[in-house]
């Protein structure tokens, strides 16, 4: 059973990471896209492009992505991602 954790609040990142298992994925949306700058993200991580653009972070994150495991996704990929995991957990 693998879960997709959806995080919208960057201040709750650590608690969210603590609750995740190794096979789980993390999707950063809304204000949580700023956590793309967090160095300790070892899990499979996705960030919603629309929310990155809204915060002026899109180019910054893309330039940093060379050695990072963060994938930038759009809403269509967000919808499909929820189906690739067994369930989603919105970490509120």
């Amino acid at each position, binding site marked *: 059973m693998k879960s997709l954790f*959806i995080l*919208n609040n960057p201040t709750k990142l650590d608690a969210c990471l603590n609750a995740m298992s190794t096979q789980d994925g993390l999707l950063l*949306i*809304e*204000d949580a896209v700023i956590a793309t700058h967090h160095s300790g993200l070892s899990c499979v991580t996705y960030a919603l492009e*629309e*929310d990155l653009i809204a915060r002026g972070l899109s180019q910054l994150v893309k330039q940093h992505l060379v050695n990072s495991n963060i994938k930038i996704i759009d*809403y*269509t990929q*967000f*919808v*499909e991602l*929820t*189906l690739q995991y067994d*369930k*989603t957990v*919105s970490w*509120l």
Partner: protein
Amino acid sequence: MAIFSLLVTATPYSAQGQFSALQFVRVAINNGHSIKRVFFYADGVLVASRLNHPPSDEINLTKAWAKLAIEQDIDLVVCVTAALKRGITNHAEAERNALTGENLDPAFEISGLGQLTEAMLESDRLITFG
């Protein structure tokens, strides 16, 4: 193609969740999926007031949901307890609780948590926006 339901607890205008949920529904439908139900709970119910009247250069979330619901035949359900607590009521609940007036937008319906449970059982995924 999958069946989705959404649980929306985000308060309108002070948080982004309502808008994110709208986007998710639009894109899911555009990609051939279906939406069983959108259930509004906690502060999320505030979006169901037809008296919400944001400035004309801002998105009207109530109308955006209503338009989507009518065009795509989506079930928008508001939790009765959460709604009454926050002054959201339809005619029947106003009468039952001796309240004057009603403000539920006609695109929404008021019901109980059973509707959320049913949506969870009959959908492939439940996505929460808070």
